[in-house]
C-alpha cells in the first residue's frame, strides 16, 4: 500500500496543473470562488477549452475521444480542477447521456450526438422526475404513443435543471402499460424547441431559477430518437443513475469549500478570538474534515478495485450519501460562521457586476440561502433514504 504518486503520476499532475494555470479563464475562477451564479456561456466557454485539449470527457473510452486515463489520473485531474476552482462540466450530456449512447445507442445515434456533446454544441437536460414520481421513479406517467414513424409524447417532467438553457432532453417515457411498473418504460431523446414543449420556471428556496417544470403536450418525436429497445428503458435508467451518483460525491469541491470555511472562520471574531480558534467551532469543522478524509480514501479504494477490474457495486450509494452529508454539513457551518450576517438577503450579489458593499463579511451574503438550497442534495439523484434502501438490499442482503 502506497499513497505516493509514481513518477509518471507526478508528471501528469504537473501537466494538468500547468494547463489549468494557463488555460482556465481568470473571470471564471473569480466567479466560482466568489460563488457568483454561472451562466450558460460560462459553462460552454470552459468546456470548449477542455474539449480542445482533449480533456472534456475523462470518463469516455479512447475510441470516442476520451483521454485514456487510468483511475489515478482521473483522480488527479479532479483534484487539480478542484484546487484551481474550476467550474464543473455539465453532467447531462458528458456524464449521463454519452455513456448511455455508447452502451445502448446505435452507431447512427453515436455519430449524430457524441461530437456535439463533446464540443458543447448542444445543451442537454434530463427528463426523469415527474410531479407524482420522485423517489418512486418507475411510477412515471408521461406517455409516448407510437404513430407511424413518430412517438407522440404527453405528460410533464419536473426538477429539470437548466431546462431553460437546453436544446434537447433525454427522457424516460411510458410506451406501454405492463404488470410491473418498471416494464414498458422507454428512453427517448426529444427537441426542446419542438411544438408542445413548455418550460415553466421553479423558484427555489434561495430565490434562484435553476430548475423547471417541463410540459409535454403532443410532442412529436421521431422513432429514431429511441435509445435501446422500446420498453426496456428501465435498464438504461439504472445504468445512468449509478453514473450520476458517483458524480454527486464531489470530494474535491468539498475540500475547497472547507478551505473557504476556514478562511471565513479565521476572520470572524468572537470575544476577541477567531471562530477557528474556538474549540467548539473548530471541532465541528474537524468532524467534517475527518468524514471527508475517509470519503476520499473510500473513493480511492473503489478506484483501486476498478483498476483491478472489479465493478464499483453499491459503493455509488455510499459515495452519494456521505458525499451529500458532507456538502450539507459544510453549508451549515458556513452559515453559522456568519452569525447575524446570515439574515441580510441580497439576491443581486450573485449577479455579475454587482458592486455594492456587502453587509457583513464579503463572502457571507449568500451563505444562508445556499444552506437552504443545498437541502436538495440529499433529495436529488435518488434521495438518501432510497440510497439506504438500495444498500440494505444489495450490500446486506436484507
Amino acid at each position: 500500500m502506497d499513497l505516493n504518486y509514481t513518477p509518471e503520476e507526478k508528471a501528469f499532475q504537473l501537466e494538468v496543473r500547468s494547463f489549468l494555470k494557463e488555460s482556465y479563464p481568470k473571470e471564471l475562477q473569480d466567479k466560482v470562488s466568489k460563488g457568483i451564479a454561472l451562466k450558460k456561456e460560462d459553462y460552454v466557454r470552459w468546456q470548449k477549452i477542455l474539449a480542445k485539449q482533449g480533456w472534456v470527457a475523462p470518463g469516455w473510452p479512447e475510441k470516442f475521444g476520451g483521454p485514456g486515463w487510468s483511475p489515478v489520473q482521473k483522480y488527479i485531474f479532479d483534484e487539480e480542477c478542484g484546487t484551481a476552482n474550476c467550474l464543473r462540466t455539465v453532467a447531462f450530456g458528458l456524464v449521463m447521456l454519452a455513456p448511455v449512447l455508447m452502451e445502448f445507442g446505435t452507431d447512427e445515434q453515436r455519430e449524430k450526438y457524441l461530437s456535439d456533446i463533446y464540443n458543447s454544441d448542444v445543451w442537454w437536460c434530463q427528463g426523469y422526475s415527474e410531479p407524482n414520481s420522485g423517489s418512486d421513479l418507475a411510477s412515471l406517467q408521461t406517455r409516448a404513443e407510437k404513430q407511424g414513424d413518430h412517438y407522440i409524447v404527453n405528460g410533464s417532467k419536473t426538477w429539470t435543471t437548466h431546462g431553460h438553457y437546453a436544446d434537447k432532453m433525454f427522457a424516460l417515457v411510458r410506451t406501454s402499460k405492463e404488470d410491473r411498473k418498471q416494464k414498458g418504460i422507454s428512453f427517448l431523446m426529444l427537441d426542446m424547441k419542438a411544438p408542445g414543449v413548455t418550460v415553466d420556471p421553479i423558484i427555489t428556496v434561495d430565490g434562484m431559477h435553476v430548475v423547471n417544470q417541463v410540459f409535454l403536450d403532443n410532442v412529436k418525436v421521431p422513432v429514431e430518437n429511441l435509445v435501446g429497445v422500446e420498453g426496456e428503458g428501465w435498464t438504461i435508467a439504472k445504468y445512468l443513475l449509478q453514473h450520476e451518483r458517483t458524480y454527486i460525491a464531489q470530494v474535491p469541491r468539498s475540500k475547497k469549500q472547507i478551505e473557504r470555511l476556514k478562511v471565513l472562520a479565521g476572520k470572524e471574531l468572537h470575544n476577541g478570538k477567531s471562530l477557528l480558534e474556538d474549540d467548539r467551532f473548530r471541532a465541528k469543522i474537524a468532524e467534517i474534515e475527518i468524514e471527508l478524509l475517509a470519503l476520499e480514501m473510500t473513493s480511492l479504494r473503489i478506484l483501486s478495485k476498478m483498476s483491478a477490474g472489479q465493478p464499483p457495486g453499491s459503493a455509488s450509494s455510499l459515495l452519494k450519501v456521505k458525499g451529500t452529508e458532507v456538502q450539507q454539513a459544510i453549508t451549515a457551518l458556513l452559515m453559522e460562521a456568519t452569525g447575524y450576517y446570515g439574515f441580510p438577503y441580497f439576491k443581486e450579489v450573485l449577479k455579475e457586476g454587482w458592486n455594492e458593499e456587502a453587509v457583513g463579511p464579503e463572502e457571507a451574503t449568500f451563505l444562508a440561502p445556499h444552506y437552504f438550497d443545498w437541502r436538495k442534495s440529499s433529495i436529488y439523484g435518488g434521495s438518501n433514504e432510497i440510497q439506504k434502501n438500495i444498500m440494505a438490499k444489495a450490500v446486506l442482503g436484507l
Partner: protein
Amino acid sequence: MNLEFTEEQVMLQDALNKYLEKEYSFEQRQKLSRNGVGYSEENWQNFADMGLLGVPFDEQYGGFGFGATGLIVVMEAIGKGLVVEPYLASVVLGGQLIQQAGSEVQKEALIPQLIAGELKLAFAYVERNSRFNLADVAFKAEKEGDGFRLSGKKSVVFNAETADKIIVSARTAGDQTSKEGISLFIVDKGAVGLSSRDYETVDGLRASELDFDGVIVGADALIGSLNEAYPVIESVIDFASAAICAESVGVITQLREKTVEYLKTRKQFGQPIGAFQVLQHRTVDMFMVEEQMRSLAYLAAIRVTDGTAEERLKSVSAAKVYLGDARPIVGEQSAQLHGGIGVTDELDVAHYVKRLTMLNVLFGDRDHHMQRFCQS
C-alpha cells in the same frame, strides 16, 4: 406549582388564532413580507385593538401585566402564522427596555403609545464584530453640552425602517468589551446624522444597517443609568430569547403537522410515504423535540419572570441550545421529508424552515448558549 394558562390568556390566544386564521393565509403573509416595508399597518392596528400590544406591560401603564409567561400564547401564535409584524422588535425588545430601565416619565410617555400602536421601536445592539457578545460595543456616545453625541454603526436592526424611535446601546466608558460603561439611548428615527440601509432578511422580515454620524441627543434620551445598561440589556435579551423560543414552538408545531399531513397524502411505491417506518420515526423525533422544546420554552418564560439571574441564564440558554437541535431534527427533516417541493419558494414549509433556522441565530446560536450554560 401551576403550569396552566389563566382564563384571560386562553381567551386572548383564541382571539388571536381566530384572527390569524382569517387574515393571515400563507399567501397573504408572503405579500406582506414583500410589500416594501414588510408588514401591514392595518394588522398592527388590529393587534392594538385586540390588546395584543399590551400583553407584557405592567397594568399601571395600561398593559395586561401577563409577563413572559403570558407572552407565550402570543409568540406561539406568531410562530404558527409566520407573522411579520414588528411585535418582537417593538413590543418585546423596545417595550421591555423601557419597562425595565425607563424612568417613570419615559414609561408614562412611551408605554401607552406603544400599547396603542401609535409608537414603534427598534433595538440596535449588533455590531460588525460583536457576534453574540452583548458587551462588545464600539459604538460611542460622548457628552455634548447637556446631551450626547452618538457615533458608530449598528447592524441587522430589525424593523428599524418603520420604527419611530431607535434604542441604541453605546459605549460611554471602559474598553470595547467591558460590561461596565455601556448606556442606552433613545433616538428619533428621523434624527439628523442617522442614515440607514434597509433590506429584506432571508426569513422574510426587514432589517437595517444603521449609521450614526454624530447624532446629537438630549440628556432625556438616556434610558436607565449612565454606564450601567449591561444588566438591563442582558435581561431584556433573555426575555426576548424566551419569547422567540415560544415562537419556535409555534413554528415547530406547524412543521410537524404539515410534514405528517404530507406523509399521509403523498404516495410513492403504491402507498402513502407515511407507511415507511423510517419516515414515521423521523416525525416521532420531531414530535419529541416539539414537546421538549415546549417544556424548555415554558421554563425559560417562567424563569425570566421570577427566577434568579443564574436560573434565568441557565433556562434561557438551555432552551436556545435545544432550539439548535431542532434545526436539523425539525427544520432540515421537514424539508427532506417533503422532497423537492420542500426546497421551493412556493411552499410554506420552506419559509417555516427558514424562520426556525434564523431563530436559532437570533440572540446567539447553539455554541454561544452552550458556552453560557456551561459557564453559569
